[in-house]
């Protein structure tokens, strides 16, 4: 019974980590056109001894900023270029898909543990 209760907290921590990952993905997408914006990366770290996960440090992607040619922009230098962001929408959408899939897998585990403990309680009723 203790194991089943532990599973609920492990799966809940997984869901929380994946939803914070999705939050950073949406922040990146929202700032895809912000000049000078570097996309945020979040890394997970295992916490506790039961397999719980928590969101670790948020770091900035070190890739080069995209150089956009727009002479009319107030930020343009003498060649007419300014630095955009290093957000690639395709990568962000793929990341969002993966976060959703992991979230649903964690939710399935949560539900399965709940049903197993429910069937244990049903034994008492017979």
């Amino acid at each position, binding site marked *: 019974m203790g194991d089943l209760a532990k599973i609920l907290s492990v799966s809940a921590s997984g869901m929380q980590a994946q939803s914070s990952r999705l939050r950073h993905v949406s922040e990146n997408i929202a700032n895809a056109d912000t000049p000078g914006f570097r996309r945020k990366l979040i890394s997970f770290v295992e916490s506790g001894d039961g397999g719980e996960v928590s969101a670790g440090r948020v770091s900035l992607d070190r890739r080069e900023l995209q150089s956009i040619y727009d002479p009319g922009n107030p930020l343009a230098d003498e060649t007419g270029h300014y630095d955009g962001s290093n957000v690639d929408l395709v990568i962000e959408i793929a990341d969002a898909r993966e976060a959703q899939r992991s979230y649903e897998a964690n939710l399935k585990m949560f539900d399965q*543990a709940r049903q197993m403990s429910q069937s244990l309680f049903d034994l008492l009723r017979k």
Partner: protein
Amino acid sequence: MLEKLQLVSMAQALASHSSSRLQLIAGNIANADTPGYQAKDLLEFNVDFASVGDQPLRQTRSGHIPSGPEFDESKIVASAFTTPNGNSVSIDIEMAKAVQAREAHTMALSIYQSASSIIRVSLGRG
């Protein structure tokens, strides 16, 4: 009295093994994106009859309850692949293992239920 029946104690051990296994699986799924995390699993449920035998486990004090077959060795699964960040969890394999654990748990509970209903019938309480 029910514990003396080997069938019932095996069913209890299988149910306990399944929920411990599900806890490791939930930990694997929660850490599916953690760098360097290796997937864990339990050894297969295998009762060694030679060691359990017909005698109950020796108790040092009369109040202690003899426990059934023990298993808490978790092993690191040798995975066929690791992602570039060192993670070896495959969500598809974990979901398949979770279904296995769920079915074993259901089977163990059904065995326990039918054993207790047989005893109830023999007591005349149908």
